[in-house]
């Protein structure tokens, strides 16, 4: 029995030590003192946070958005902040993994006591924390995703920003129906709400008989060429391939297609069609696959003729005042980002989104509360000046941002973009600006024109 006692004693020490270990570990971390009610805001500062992919499959391109947003906040802070409050922006790397998002979002809310979650990226990632943020009454603002799920009365604290994917699918689908009448159409989509919502929109417009193949991939397991999917699309004889793909997936589909001599008309969601993002990916995947430098460079030609959707002025329109302002802001307040990425679709997106948030803060007034901020977005959101081709749609019932844009085609005839990555290709509008709703509503021409940057921004940026 002594023998057993020895065993049990050590086991007892074990449990006792367990508590000690944990105590030692956590004592090092100071307990948060701010109250849960309106944490993250003082007379001189606002702390906001986000989870974004800085590494992992979705990082190429998307990792630029949060630093670009920070450039806008630095510009605001350099000019005294909003109502005297400087914006402190914490963005953490969730690697586009919803499990990481769930943990990091709790870190932001519970440990860093953020006032609001602003500019977090991704559909699977943000749906993972939508319930939590709403339960904690933390605004989940301007989510970088076009999921239909953001405008849901069940989740009053969530606001989307970019056009719902269903709207992109509808407008692009209507274009295909009109200009590629009678052609066989195939889908390649990411198997989550991003891809499914896009396909849903395209299905609303296209005759069911024209769809010959529906291929999908999983973002979580995206690691190599989508050769099987592309081969299936080719075998089905699809002349038009509509894609709801992240930039890496766009490249991983185009390369095997080119390898088997398959040249369909690509019609790609705005998510995966930014030339300065996809172009370098095409080149780097080719180089990693053993291609020569010349072959890698030649792959950029695959993007020529690609049809996509735009809801902000293409970044190669250097005469556009928004493009000029964004360039100046990045040059001055994010020099390292400027030298690595310049103004591409992602940095332009980040600047526009951050500027939307700054206006929301201005509209919320001096006495900043979460309820006040949400009310300001719902009542004044449609008046915010942003680079968008259409105004923001926010109201008490609509939590989508832009609900329209135009169909554009990538071509080498447009003025070349001016990014350090040497992007050579620009976008030419094919249609006028159109608006619609994610539901069954019709697609309508938009005649309102877009807003100009305020003079303060032009002057000081």
């Amino acid at each position, binding site marked *: 029995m002594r023998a057993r006692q020895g065993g049990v004693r050590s086991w*007892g020490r074990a449990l006792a030590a367990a508590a000690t270990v944990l105590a030692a570990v956590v004592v090092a971390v100071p307990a948060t003192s701010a109250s849960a009610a309106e944490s993250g805001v003082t007379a001189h500062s606002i702390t906001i946070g986000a989870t974004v992919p800085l590494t992992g499959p979705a990082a190429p391109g998307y990792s630029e958005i949060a630093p670009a947003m920070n450039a806008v906040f630095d510009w605001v802070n350099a000019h005294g902040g909003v109502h005297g409050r400087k914006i402190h922006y914490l963005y953490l790397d969730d690697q586009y993994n919803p499990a990481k998002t769930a943990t990091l979002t709790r870190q932001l809310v519970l440990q860093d006591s953020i006032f609001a979650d602003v500019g977090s990226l991704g*559909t699977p990632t943000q749906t993972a924390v939508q319930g939590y943020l709403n339960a904690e009454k933390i605004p989940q603002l301007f989510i970088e995703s076009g999921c239909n799920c953001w405008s849901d009365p069940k989740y009053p604290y969530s606001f989307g920003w970019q056009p719902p994917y269903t709207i992109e699918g509808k407008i692009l689908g209507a274009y295909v129906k009109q200009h590629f009448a009678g052609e066989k159409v195939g889908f390649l989509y990411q198997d989550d709400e991003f891809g499914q919502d896009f396909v849903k929109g395209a299905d609303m417009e296209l005759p069911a008989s024209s769809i010959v193949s529906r291929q999908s991939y999983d973002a*979580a397991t995206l690691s190599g060429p989508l050769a099987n999917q592309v081969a299936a699309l080719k075998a089905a004889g699809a002349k038009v391939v509509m894609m709801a793909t992240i930039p890496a997936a766009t490249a991983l589909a185009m390369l095997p297609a080119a390898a088997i001599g398959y040249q369909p008309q690509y019609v790609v969601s705005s998510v995966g069609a930014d030339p300065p993002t996809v172009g370098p990916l095409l080149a780097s995947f080719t180089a990693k696959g053993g291609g020569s430098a010349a072959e890698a460079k030649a792959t950029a030609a695959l993007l020529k003729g690609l049809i996509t959707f735009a809801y902000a002025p293409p970044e190669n329109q250097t005469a556009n005042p928004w493009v000029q302002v964004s360039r100046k802001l990045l040059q001055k307040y994010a020099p390292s980002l400027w030298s690595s990425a310049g103004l591409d679709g992602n940095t332009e997106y980040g600047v526009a989104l951050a500027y939307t948030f700054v206006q929301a803060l201005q509209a919320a007034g001096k006495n900043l509360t979460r309820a006040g901020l949400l009310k300001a977005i719902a009542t004044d959101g449609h008046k915010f000046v942003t680079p968008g081709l259409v105004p923001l749609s926010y109201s008490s019932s609509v939590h989508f941002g832009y609900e329209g844009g135009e169909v554009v085609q990538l071509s080498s005839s447009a003025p070349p973009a001016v990014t350090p990555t040497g992007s050579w290709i620009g976008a030419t509008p094919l249609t006028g600006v159109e608006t619609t709703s994610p539901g069954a509503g019709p697609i309508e021409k938009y005649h309102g024109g877009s807003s100009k940057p305020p003079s303060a921004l032009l002057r000081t940026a």
Partner: protein
Amino acid sequence: MAGQPLVRHLVLALAAAAGFYLLTSVLSPYDNFQVGEIAAYAVALAGLSVLTGVNGQISLGHGALMAVGAYSFGLLMTHTQLNLMVELLAAVGLTTVLGIAVGIPSARLAGPYLAGVTLMLALGLPLLADQYSSTFGGDQGLTITPPAAPGSLDPERWLAWIQIAAALVTIVLLANLLRSRFGRAFRAVRDDEVAAELAGIHVGRTKVLAFAVSAACAGLAGALLVLSTGIVNTGEFPLSLSIDLLAGMVLGGAGSLMGVWWGAVALVYLPQWSTSVAGSLSLGNGVSAYLATVVFGLILIVVMLVAPSGLQGLLRWTGGRLLSTLRWVPASVTALEVRQPANQEKDQESQEKDQESQESQESQESQESQESQESQDKQDRTERSEA
């Protein structure tokens, strides 16, 4: 006879529960959230520790078994309105069934082949979730609403309590199991299958049982993790998790039920610490994302070199050395424990037995209630021959 350790385990668990209660009362919500995660990982590591450390089977598929528990729990939470306890137990039950199904063919395999089969599990199961995305929610997974905390209790503290309670109950049950006939059979099979069979132990059945117990723990751990994050998703259970679990188990000390706490702390805090270190040194994103893996690997190498019986073994040794400077009695014991040969991992438990019997001899020499000692020794012998 069996009652005595049970009572001791219960008393100790209650003491630990009291300690945890005090701990969770002073911690901030986020720290409680992490203590809950630690408890969840401790459950998985305890199961793995029994499987590998005590029974000698290697599993590279425990991440997948956790996923099975998590998805079962997630589906039950979404589609039923049962009591939380019932749902947790159902998730454990389903994972155990799978554990038995995997365990039966695996009982015929050993070493790398067993690792291969379980690795296949880790690779294959997540694909199943993607394949049947209408049931399992595809990439996005399932979102659940965690049970509301009673009264004005902080939700994180409430969840941490549930997770800690589950971990303590599991560890008490495992500790009792290991001190029972089954525990001895596990060790006997690990040490020498032929000898175990000659002693009348059904080797195959014992291995399947160990695998089932370990799968049950993994299933519970998966369900407990879902409780804190509110989502079930394949991204939560990548292949690397299975390997991290194995590393965490070895780090704490294979076969040690205390060591699992060290391993669990490392699994939860290491990624965070290394990210903040990388941030403060302003290393690039590419570095900071993978620094945790590198640091984990380095710690593992150092631990294996310095303390092959894991951090818990090292702690026990240090504690023994401190005691030996105060008293002479345990000195020889601790010295023995430290000077285990390099291949002692396999023999560790049997050596511990030797030490323990030596310890009892020593105490006999000290003539302290000699009579009862003798009768207990007899009991021990009969138990061993039973096994």
